[in-house]
């Protein structure tokens, strides 16, 4: 090695490369956001990486809502300006982009993230900046945070619709298989709680790592136990292999779920009859046979002809952007504290803005009362609505007793059922 021969210019270039690299690329810090004639909305939804299958419909529905609002005169005469970089299903990227959208673009409201892990990764930043944030995925429930509005149904709402239906129709002996992570474990706890409330019991429980894609032993175990029905809380691409394997193994026991079909549209992607006799508890699937929804679905596919599906969480993005519009108009300002104040008073979402049917925001707990349906998939993969009820968020509002609009207005927590129910966690 002969470094000593190198002289000034090479070295200056080298040093400069380092500094240049460090300093370049971050355009226009500070400033920004002072124009005042647009409303800035940040949408971070995955268009690549592991969650892109379920994230892309969310991004598309958000864009549809924003374009519709802009075409109809915007919010209080102001056009919406959208910031929508691709976080690539990567939590570090989410953290960087969340900082950027808040600090540099100074967005007035933020929609972000599919998984609970993502939400937890950015929640410290959200709370540090007191950013108005909408989380739209169906999730395990229990988040009580002054800045976070959870638009999707909770596990208790979803399972609360399908588990009682399954018990009534098939029997009381339940076998739960669930993804081995937070959401799956908490959902399994909720199955136990709801089973107990309805005189049934979970006699077998099996947790499956997210990376698992071979279900031979699981299927044999289910066959051996021969339950009345299975609750399958399976998540992600690897777990989708379960349905083909179950069908070719000849396992005919009816299955309930809160995580299959409505999110990753397995009934469209897998060859029939992989999802025969699967019953899901959801607030939305694109097959809901109402005029209001059919109208929405045709708008969605007009805008996105290549789209694969309008999934459950995409509709949550759609209605919540309209809900934000209504809140800003009521507050008369985009000032985030003022908008939160309005939202904390609760709100009804009606008409075309909510394709799933009329719903309402439970202001004190920042969650939604949804139209929960039991949807059945038949051997030809046709979807029918078997049951429909309005189910409010109950865990925070009734069991824990939270009021984010009053005494708990500084809360930034997530509560779990284990602390409140004996059946959970056993």
């Amino acid at each position, binding site marked *: 090695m002969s470094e000593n021969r190198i002289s000034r210019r090479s070295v200056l270039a080298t040093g400069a490369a380092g500094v240049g690299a460090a300093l370049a690329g971050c355009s226009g810090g500070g400033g920004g956001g002072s124009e005042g004639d647009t409303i800035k909305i940040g949408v971070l939804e995955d268009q690549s990486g592991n969650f892109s*299958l379920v994230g892309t419909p969310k991004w598309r529905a958000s864009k549809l809502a924003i374009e519709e609002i802009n075409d109809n005169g915007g919010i209080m005469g102001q056009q919406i300006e959208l910031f929508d970089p691709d976080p690539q299903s990567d939590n570090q990227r989410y953290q960087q982009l969340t900082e950027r959208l808040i600090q540099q673009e100074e967005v007035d409201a933020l929609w972000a993230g599919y998984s609970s892990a993502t939400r937890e990764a950015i929640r410290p930043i959200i709370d540090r900046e007191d950013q108005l944030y909408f989380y739209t995925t169906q999730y395990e429930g229990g988040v009580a945070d002054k800045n976070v509005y959870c638009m999707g149904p909770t596990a208790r709402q979803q399972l609360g619709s399908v588990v009682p239906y399954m018990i009534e129709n098939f029997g009381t002996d339940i076998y739960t298989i669930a993804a081995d992570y937070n959401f799956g474990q908490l959902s399994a706890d909720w199955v136990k709680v709801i089973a107990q409330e309805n005189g049934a019991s979970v006699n077998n429980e099996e947790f499956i790592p997210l*990376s*698992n894609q*071979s279900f*031979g*032993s699981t299927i044999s175990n289910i066959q051996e136990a021969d339950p009345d029905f299975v609750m399958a809380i399976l998540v992600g691409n690897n777990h989708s292999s379960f349905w083909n394997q179950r069908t*070719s*193994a000849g396992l005919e026991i009816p299955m309930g779920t809160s995580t299959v079909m409505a999110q990753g549209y397995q009934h469209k992607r897998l060859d029939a009859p992989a999802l025969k006799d699967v019953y899901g508890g959801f607030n939305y699937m694109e097959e809901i046979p109402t005029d209001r929804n059919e109208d929405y679905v045709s708008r969605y596919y007009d805008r996105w002809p290549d789209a694969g599906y309008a999934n459950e969480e995409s509709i949550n993005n759609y209605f919540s952007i309209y809900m934000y519009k209504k809140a800003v108009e009521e507050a008369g300002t985009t000032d985030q504290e003022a908008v939160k104040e309005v939202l904390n008073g609760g709100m009804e979402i009606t008409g075309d803005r909510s394709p799933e049917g009329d719903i309402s925001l439970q202001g004190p707990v920042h969650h939604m009362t949804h139209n929960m349906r039991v949807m059945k998939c038949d051997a030809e993969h046709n979807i029918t609505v078997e049951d429909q009820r309005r189910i409010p968020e109950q865990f925070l509002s009734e069991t824990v007793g939270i009021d984010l609009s009053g005494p708990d207005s500084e809360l930034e927590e997530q509560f779990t059922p284990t602390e409140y129910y004996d059946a959970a966690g056993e």
Partner: protein
Amino acid sequence: MTTGFGAAGMLTPLVIGDVLGALDSVGVPIPQLLQMADNIAFIALAAIGLTIIFGMMGVINLAHGEFIMMGAYITTLSVNVASIPLPVAMLLGALGTAVFGAIVERTIVRRLYGRLLDSMIVTFGLGLILTQGTRIIFGNSLQSIGTPFGNVPGYTYSGYRVLLLFAAIAVLGAVYLVFTRTEFGVQARATIQDPETARAMGVDTDRMYTITFAIGSGLAGLTGALYAPSATIVPGMGQSFLVESFVTVVTGGSSVLLGTALAGGILGTINAIFSNLYGNFIGQIALLITAIIVIRLLPDGLTGLAATIREKIGERQ
């Protein structure tokens, strides 16, 4: 079920059913046995393409998972779009990936021989491009094709998954024949052992490298094709094969065939036993821990152990 495998394909599960019935009557735990067959097949098939490329050429192909994905995509698209019968579509999947592998070798990998770690970075980059390119062109998922054959007669287990064990054995057998009994095999091994001499003897070494790389890629493609009817078809699907394949390659050691067969057998069995006894999580951890122990105790992998034993037996004689 539109399989196109014909009568022979339908007969096999029936034969298996009889055999299993006989085993069951003597007290063999059949579900566990089926699970074991499934796991061994998965591990051996996941690794075989990578083993050839690493063992024979010294290139760590981090795009291995994406080659598998490519095989699955070609197969699925052939069936869905062109209505080609499944077995032909699988062949196309393997061939298409082999051709792609040959192109990659000619244009990129060729420049990186002897730069083991650079080849890792380049193939990592290639993998990113393939995954995301697939996503951009074909969207986030493809309509999957159904799994043929139904269940193992008398048992709640997918017959197709069990048949893959026979596919794995056939693939290993074919690789063995190609590399030991054909003119190409002899030349390829000569090239790998001593390129200078091989060239002096008139072997076209460039061609040998290209063909070897193409075979490795084609086998990865075949793995994808074989799992296409049983997995979900998404751009990132190759990732789920990656860990098993790397673990198998290092556990197996330098001999392509013996190593893959031994490692596949041992790791698959351990994974199946622990999954059955203690659940899938422990099964996975057991697999990884076994790999760590094998690498620690046998720095040359299982093949190294086999070679040592052979030598010792030779000494005694």
